[in-house]
């Protein structure tokens, strides 16, 4: 009958995606930038010239001066040190959100995709959760739990879950129609085993991509929550709350937003570019040749 479509092996592209030399130059730069940012934040404790909390309100809002390469903030704290250390928490929030929402979404999505009875109920609940604007939900959740790191992560994670659930469910629904899954049924493989061994790996590739986007958007959302007054304490600097605190001084000391903003944007830009590159490699449709 019809000529066969190109192979849709999905694990190969993942492996390939993890091998950098196959990326374009844009992705290589992105990977490099991200690596620099990650290394700098990881080593922040040793690189930072000052304790990010040490304050001197009498020498506040100074420009670059001796000992403060990027100047000081409104408490007279060292901006450079704060941006360095702030990256840690921003990245932790991003990574934690991505991991947690992907894991929870994976489990719920699997259940919804495979058990028709649970599907309707789960998806209505997910619809409801998706219908609530995520920022409002996040503010309310932070207000509920107090603006700790944990509650900020929870507040950003919960609205992301339905999106992951939908993705996983769609992949599962598509994959369960695959002949190799039917063949596995014919081979007497039990349902849980099919779920774990045949279906979960299918979701891996799209979830890696989705995870990078969640990671990026979580860092951004944290910044917005801080902006709206529902972020983590100034004693635990993040790029988001440094910017949120600095916004009052945007016109007299734009560095307070500029430097953390630059770090954050570069970081997210790199993550997004890598996510895009991974997606392009993982999406067989984009590899299809015209004609």
């Amino acid at each position, binding site marked *: *009958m*019809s*000529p*066969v*479509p190109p*192979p*849709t*092996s*999905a*694990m*190969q592209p993942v492996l390939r995606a993890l091998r950098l030399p196959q990326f374009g130059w844009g992705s290589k730069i992105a990977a490099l930038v991200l690596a620099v940012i990650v290394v700098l934040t990881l080593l922040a404790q040793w690189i930072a010239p000052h304790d990010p909390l040490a304050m001197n309100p009498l020498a506040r809002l100074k420009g670059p001066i001796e000992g403060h390469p990027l100047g000081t903030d409104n408490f007279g704290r060292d901006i450079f040190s704060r941006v360095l250390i702030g990256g840690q928490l921003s990245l932790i929030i991003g990574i934690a959100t991505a991991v947690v929402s992907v894991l929870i979404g994976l489990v719920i999505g699997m259940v919804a995709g495979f058990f028709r009875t649970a599907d309707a109920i789960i998806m209505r609940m997910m619809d409801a959760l998706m219908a609530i604007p995520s920022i409002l939900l996040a503010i309310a959740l932070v207000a509920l739990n107090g603006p700790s790191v944990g509650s900020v992560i929870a507040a950003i994670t919960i609205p992301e879950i339905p999106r992951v659930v939908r993705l996983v469910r769609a992949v599962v629904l598509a994959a369960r129609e*695959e*002949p*190799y899954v*039917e*063949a*596995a*049924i*014919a*081979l*007497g*493989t*039990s*349902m849980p*085993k099919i779920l774990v061994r*045949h279906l979960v*790996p299918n979701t891996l590739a799209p979830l890696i991509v989705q995870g990078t986007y969640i990671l990026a958007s979580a860092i951004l959302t944290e910044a917005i929550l801080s902006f709206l007054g529902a972020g983590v304490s100034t004693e635990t600097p993040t790029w988001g709350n440094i910017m949120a605190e600095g916004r009052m001084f945007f016109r007299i000391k734009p560095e307070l937003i500029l430097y953390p903003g630059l770090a954050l944007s570069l970081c997210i830009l790199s993550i997004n570019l890598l996510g895009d590159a991974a997606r392009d490699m993982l999406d067989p449709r984009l590899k299809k*040749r*015209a*004609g």
Partner: protein
Amino acid sequence: MLFKTRNFDGAPVALQARNLTVSLPETPGNPQVLKGIDVTIRQGETVCLVGESGSGKSVTSLAIMGLLPQALKVATGSITLQGQDLLPLSQAQMRQLRAARVAMIFQEPMTALNPVLRVGDQIMEVMELHTDLPVAERRARARAIMEQVHLPDVDRIFRSYPHQLSGGQRQRIMIAMALVLEPVLLIADEPTTALDVTTQKQILSLIDELQQKHGTAVLFITHDMGVVAEIADTVYVMKHGEIVEHGPIETLLRQPRAEYTRKLLSAVPSLSPRAARAVADNTVLRVESLNKIYGGGGILKKLPQAHAAKDVTFTLPRGRTLGIVGESGSGKSTVARCIMRLIDPTSGRIMLDGTDIADLSRRALRPHRQKLQVVFQDPMRSLNPRWTIAESLIEGPLNYGTPRREALAEAARLMGVVGLPQDALARYPHQFSGGQRQRIAIARAVMMRPDVLVADEAVSALDVSVQAQVLDLLDQLQRDLGIAIVFITHDLRVAAQICDEVIVMQRGAVVEHGPADRVLSTPAHSYTRALIDAAPGRFWDFHNFRELPKVNHAEPA
């Protein structure tokens, strides 16, 4: 008349490709996809370009249209249309040419028409692009050409969207669109491959009719020797980007010179049924009054019902093959999936070794699963792409408690049986060709030592030469292991080759059921006869390069 025997030596040349070479300039090594081919098509002539997948036949057609994908470039050679060299033309000039002087129709009528535009508008668009006829005139011409391609109810169809039409109707629209400006050359790239045989026959005769009416030159690309035998004046056989042989159709079929041509022809399964085997009496599978009804649910309004399988009854003895034959939508795959319990039958009994498995729960079914295995159509998707071949092969045995080492040993042995190297076990599916993967899928099924193997269009996606090998493998396994096979196919030739008994299905119902030689040589039902009549090249015994001995069809009752 067996073949077309028209002579075009005196006719003017419509299109000529000389020493045409197409390469992949950006791929390391600059591989050539077409290696200096020469093709000549004269006015009114039908030239068939035949070859297996990857032979370069579609690239040839796209090169002529100037629609090569970006990665491909014409390296050397020339393409002249009525004496005009096409290669130096600009994109704009080529656009002028397309549809006006060279038109093309494609394999998939389902996807070749724009789904969001009305078909009438799509036909009119051709005139809009190439003529300055007023709208009324364009509309009149569009309707006229729709009449010519024998579309019923032109008024309605003119306003229809592609999805509202059948596959055959869509292909007629494509033909109408291609011919409305009376081009010099029509390129038809596998135009009937996706169609049922009865529709295929109609489309082929339509192309023939219009060609004679308009004197169009036709370049017909196909992999199907039967179709070639039906329509070609001249045949070009392609392999790996080269023309291995060309000549008038009858000469080529009777005295193929090239080894490849001979091989290709020999691989075409014969329509004459296999020799009947002794009827075995140890029944392994009995299906009684199997029904499958889809739909009928719905909360607010009753959804329409579809009776996908009606009262299907048959028995299958050990070591024998039952063919279920029918066109798309006949319900043959529904029956297969019901037997496999991939879907639940609405009613009826499925007796497997004496146990009715039709109503068993999933858990109760498990012990019976291993006796019942399946091979699917699409060799690309029937193996988990993330698993090594070994993992796929031993999945079933491990489920039933076979120790891993034993299972692996058996897998290694079976690799030999299905003709694959031992190291195949450690590799992944994408490293194999379609035919090889189908062998692996068969090996996976055989690992379970099944009593019944359901082969759902298991060879349909394969090239004929590969097809023959897989059929041989099935036959051999059946002889060695006594497996009973339920063979689902739309292809009468394949059915004739492998089946002991044949069931012919139409719209969910069994219309004819009997021994293969009886059903295929003296069909009782008109639908069966229509199917056989529509099989292209049915008069020819490709394997032996000669006509088939005349068979006596029973006259319709």
